[in-house]
C-alpha cells in the first residue's frame, strides 16, 4: 500500500519540478521582459511586443522541449522494458537517427510543403524503418552487445544518408544543418512547429498507456510473460509503432536530441523500485524536466553563441553511457 503512495508522491514531485522548470523557461530569454505584463498584454486584441515574445517565442520553445523530452523519456523507458536492456533508448537503437533521416528526406526534397504533417510523417517512417532494422539485426533475444552493435550500424547508416542528402540538397543552407540534425536544437521553434509535432506524439503516448503491465510481466522473460497472458507479438508491434509515432514526430521538429531516453529512465528506475510499468509515467516527466533544464541552460550562455540543446544533453549523457557499459559488464 505505502509503495503505491510513494509512487504517487514521486509523480507529484516530478510534476511540480516540471511545472517549475516550465514557468522558469518562460522567464528566461535573451532579453528580460516583464512576464506578468506580457501575460496581461497577450489577452488584448492588439498584442504588444513583450506578449509576442512570451506567446510566440518562449511558450512554443518550452512546449516543444516538454513534449520532445517527455517523448524521449517515455519511449526510452518503454524500449528498455521491452528489450529488458538498460542500454536500449531511441538514440541507441536507431529510432532517433532514423527519424532525423526521414525528416531530412522530406524537408530538403521540398515535400514538406505537400501537406502540413509531411515533415513528422517522414520522421515517423524513418524511425519505424530504422527501429525494425535494428530489431531484425539484433533479433529479439539478442544480447546487449548485438543490440548495441546493430544500433551503431544503423545509426552510422542513417547519419551517412543524412549527410549525403544534406550535401545534395538544393538549398544552399542545408549543408550547414548536419549538426542540427545530429544533435538537435529547439531554439527556433514556433507554435506551428509545436502543432505539427503534437498529433504524432500524442498518439504515440496514448498507445503506450496501459502497456506497463505487460512490461512488468516481461521482467520474467518473454516465455514467462506469454504464460502470464501477455500477447507478446501484439505488444511488440504496439511499442514499435508508438515509439515511431512519438519519436518520429518529435525528432522531425527538434533533430536527434541524444541521451535523454537513456539517462532519464536509468536515473528514475531505482525510485520506482525498478518496475518497468511505473517507470513509464515517471520517465515522461523526467525527460520533459531534463530537456527543459537543458534548454534553459543553453539560454544562459552569452547571446550570439549558438550552443544547441543536444550538445548539453550529449555532454551529460555520453559519460553516463560509458558508466552504464561498465556497469553492465558486471552482470
Amino acid at each position, binding site marked *: 500500500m505505502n509503495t503505491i503512495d510513494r509512487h504517487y508522491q514521486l509523480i507529484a514531485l516530478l510534476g511540480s519540478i516540471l511545472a517549475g522548470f516550465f514557468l522558469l523557461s518562460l522567464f528566461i530569454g535573451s532579453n528580460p521582459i516583464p512576464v506578468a505584463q506580457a501575460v496581461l498584454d497577450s489577452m488584448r486584441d492588439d498584442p504588444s511586443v513583450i506578449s509576442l515574445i512570451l506567446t510566440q517565442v518562449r511558450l512554443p520553445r518550452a512546449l516543444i522541449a516538454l513534449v520532445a523530452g517527455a517523448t524521449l523519456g517515455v519511449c526510452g523507458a518503454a524500449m528498455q522494458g521491452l528489450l529488458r536492456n538498460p542500454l536500449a533508448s531511441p538514440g541507441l537503437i536507431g529510432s532517433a537517427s532514423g527519424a532525423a533521416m526521414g525528416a531530412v528526406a522530406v524537408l530538403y526534397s521540398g515535400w514538406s510543403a505537400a501537406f502540413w504533417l509531411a515533415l513528422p510523417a517522414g520522421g515517423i517512417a524513418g524511425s519505424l524503418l530504422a527501429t525494425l532494422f535494428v530489431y531484425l539485426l539484433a533479433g529479439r533475444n539478442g544480447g546487449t552487445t548485438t543490440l548495441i552493435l546493430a544500433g551503431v550500424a544503423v545509426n552510422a547508416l542513417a547519419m551517412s544518408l543524412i549527410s549525403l542528402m544534406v550535401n545534395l540538397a538544393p538549398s544552399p543552407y542545408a549543408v550547414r*544543418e548536419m549538426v542540427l540534425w545530429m544533435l538537435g536544437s529547439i531554439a527556433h521553434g514556433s507554435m506551428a512547429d509545436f502543432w505539427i509535432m503534437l498529433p504524432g506524439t500524442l498518439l504515440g503516448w496514448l498507445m503506450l498507456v496501459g502497456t506497463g503491465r505487460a512490461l512488468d510481466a516481461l521482467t520474467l522473460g518473454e516465455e514467462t510473460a506469454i504464460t502470464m497472458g501477455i500477447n507478446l507479438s501484439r505488444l511488440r508491434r504496439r511499442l514499435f509503432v508508438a515509439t515511431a509515432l512519438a519519436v518520429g514526430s518529435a525528432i522531425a521538429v527538434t533533430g536527434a536530441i541524444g541521451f535523454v531516453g537513456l539517462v532519464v529512465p536509468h536515473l528514475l528506475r531505482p525510485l520506482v523500485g525498478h518496475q518497468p510499468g511505473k517507470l513509464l509515467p515517471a520517465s515522461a516527466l523526467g525527460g520533459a524536466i531534463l530537456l527543459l533544464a537543458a534548454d534553459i541552460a543553453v539560454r544562459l550562455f552569452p547571446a*550570439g553563441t549558438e550552443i544547441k540543446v543536444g550538445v548539453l544533453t550529449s555532454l551529460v549523457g555520453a559519460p553516463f553511457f560509458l558508466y552504464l557499459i561498465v556497469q553492465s559488464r558486471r552482470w
Partner: protein
Amino acid sequence: MGGYRAYSVFLTCILVYAGISKAQPPSRVVSINLCSDQLLLMLARPRQIASISRLALEPNSSYMSDAAAGFPVNDAKLEQLLSLDPDLILAGGYSSPSLIRLLKRLGYRVEIVPSSVNLEQIHSNIRLVARLVGDEDLGETIIEEMNLRVHQISVRSSSTRNRALFYQPRGYTSGSGTLQDLALTLAGWRNLSAELGVNGYGSLDLESLLISNPDQIFTSAYAPETDSVAQRQLRHPALAWVTGNNPLIDIPYRYWICGGPMLVDAVEALADAHQRLH
C-alpha cells in the same frame, strides 16, 4: 542592363580608333570570381572575354546572367585556366590565395577585384576593371548613372526614417559595414541591426529582433524555391506579427552578392517599400 550593353556597343565604335594609340588592351580575359565576372561583363567588349566563372550564369547569384550566356565557363581549376591561355586573369577578394600565387609564379597577369561594402569601393572597382580592359570612359559613365539614380531616390524619399532590418535564414542579419546597411540607409530606412551594435554579418536572436520592433523586415534569401531548417525560420509567425502583418520583403540576392552598379536596383526596391509604408 540593356543600357550598359547599348553603351558598350556605342562606345566600342568610338574607342576602336582611340585605342590604337594606347597600349594594346587584353584580348583574352579570364575571370574566376562572380564579382569580377559581373564587372567584366559590364565593361569589356565581348571578344575580350575568354571565360567567366560558372556562377555568372546562375540567375539567383548573377545580375549579369543574361549577358553571361554563351561565354565559356570555368571552375577556377588550374588546368582549365592554363588551357584558356589568358592574357589577364581577374580574381575576387575571396579567391583562393594559393591558386593566385601559383598563377603569378607561372607568369600570368592576375588582378584582384577587392570586395566592396561602400559606394567609394564600388566606384573604385568599376574604375579598376574599366582601366584593365581599356574602357575607362564606360566606367565613368556607369558611375555617373549610379550617382544620378541614388540622388533621385534620396530626393523622393520621405524625411521620416522608419525602422527596418534584414533577417536571413539561420537568423543572420546585416549590421554596419555591409552592402545591405548601405542600401537601407540610401533608401531612407534606419538599419536596426546596425543600431543594435551588429557589425558586419552577425546572428540576431529572435527575441532581440522582436524587441527592436521593426516596421519592416527584409530578407534576401539565396535559392528561394528550396527549403531547409534555416529557411523555415523566416516563416516564424512572430515576424509577421511584429510588423503588423507586413509580409517579409525578399530582395533578390544577386543585387549584393557583389558590390556593383546593381546595388542601385536594390536601393530602389527598398525605397519603393519605404514609400508603400506611408
